[in-house]
């Protein structure tokens, strides 16, 4: 049986105006899962539930084989690298001071690794955290998450607000991290192109419900993009079409590859288009 880095079962968390509703999925070890969803979809609630920072009403969460409600989970957090949606370090501390602080918190803390990441990201170690740009703050958080031999990274919008070059660098770092088959990543992001680049699995949260959790390649194989004349489009089965729009010259449609006539050759649709279409379909 494949090892699961993360296993969420029937997770429900109720707030006054929001409900994370019966969410279930698992993340195999050595894989990267991208968590996608609009603002307020429940991504951060899900991540905080996994980390034990909020208490769900029902459901079970196993992280690296350990129930996150058990007493052992505190110790297991040594193996979880966390980046929250805001870099939460004290504004008046420098990276060097943060290194000393985190060195006193994590038993497996590696100063050299942290300093190497600082160097790699071009972060000045004596600069105050408050004087860092948003990108630099997130890079510092990522450096910290990667410097205590974590086996699972849980990252909430780590690339949000970063410029493309920095994002590219960070995505490379995540890819390097999962070269070790023991290491896995759960990453939430609005930037679907980033997730498409690095993720093995895509989970899509919409209004607190998990619409799907699929292998990225399966999604890309299932859906394709076709450009058709209007009469050819109208001849398609209704349930073959996920979304369509009139281009003026004909119709461009996102279709299920297994429901279209043989001989029709759909093009690569991209995860973003598939996600948007699925979200709109759900809304209908």
């Amino acid at each position, binding site marked *: 049986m494949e090892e699961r880095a993360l296993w969420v079962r029937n997770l429900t968390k109720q707030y006054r105006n929001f409900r994370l509703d019966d969410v279930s999925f698992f993340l195999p070890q050595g894989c990267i899962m991208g968590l996608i969803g609009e603002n307020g979809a429940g991504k951060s609630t899900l991540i905080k539930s996994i*980390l034990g920072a909020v208490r769900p009403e029902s459901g079970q969460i196993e992280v690296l084989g350990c129930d996150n409600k058990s007493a052992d989970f505190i110790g297991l957090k040594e193996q979880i690298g*966390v980046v929250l949606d805001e870099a939460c*370090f004290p504004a008046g501390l420098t990276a060097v001071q943060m290194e000393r*602080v*985190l060195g*006193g*918190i994590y038993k497996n803390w590696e100063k050299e690794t942290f300093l190497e990441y600082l160097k790699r990201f071009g972060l000045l170690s004596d600069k105050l955290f408050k004087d860092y740009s948003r990108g630099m703050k997130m890079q510092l958080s990522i450096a910290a998450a990667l410097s205590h031999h974590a086996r699972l990274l849980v990252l909430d919008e780590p690339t949000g607000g970063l410029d493309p070059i920095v994002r590219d660098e960070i995505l490379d770092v995540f890819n390097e991290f999962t070269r070790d088959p023991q290491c896995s990543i759960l990453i939430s992001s609005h930037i679907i192109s980033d997730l498409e680049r690095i993720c093995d699995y895509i989970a899509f949260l919409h209004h607190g419900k998990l619409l799907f959790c699929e292998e990225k390649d399966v999604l890309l194989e299932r859906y394709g993009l076709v450009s058709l004349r209007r009469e050819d489009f109208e001849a398609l089965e209704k349930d073959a079409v996920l979304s369509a729009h009139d281009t003026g010259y004909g119709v461009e449609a996102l279709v299920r590859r297994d429901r279209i006539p043989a001989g029709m050759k759909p093009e690569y649709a991209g995860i973003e288009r598939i996600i948007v279409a699925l979200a709109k379909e759900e809304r209908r």
Partner: protein
Amino acid sequence: MKGLLRKDWYVFLKYGKLFSLFIFVYSFLTFFMDNPTFYILICMLMSVLMVKMLMAYEEQEKWDSLAACFPIRPEQLVLEKYLVSLLLSGAMLVLLGIEFLGVAVFLPQKALDFSLLQMVFLMFCVNMLMLAVELPLLFWFGVNRSRIWLMILVAAVFGIGSAIGAVLQETYVFWRGSWITTVTGGFVLSVIALLLSLRLSVAAYKKREF
């Protein structure tokens, strides 16, 4: 725990300088005032405020959310703040003690009142009692929301205290113990209160979500 203490130390060094200066001036004034109780109490209250300041920064910077993800037991996270509070109050006690000696050595013409030292110890106990009341509120409600509750609680305690005091005065029941008994009693009472408060704070922290 070591990391958390270190973090608070760095934050204190960064933001606590003005507090420290204020405390130094006020504590020094204590020895030259006719009614020093107020000044001693202010100094001790400063240590309570400093802990509040540290926790306010944590909330503002969302460090508390990150700390909830650290491999640290809730008991340790809470205990660390109690340790910081006691270290700050202890530092205040030491500062006042040093100043007392300083005045004795460098200003021999000034007649030293040893009851002042006893008053310092008593105020230290009052400070610990205040911490015992305040910290569970801070852990339960957070810094912003705890303010109003603290005001209500302090008003209630002072109100009830004054009422009891008035009744005792009318019935001529006074405490006639020696200073040493008063200070020891106060110390024991405040230690018990702090221990109970620690348990409450841990329970409050465990109920919080981040």
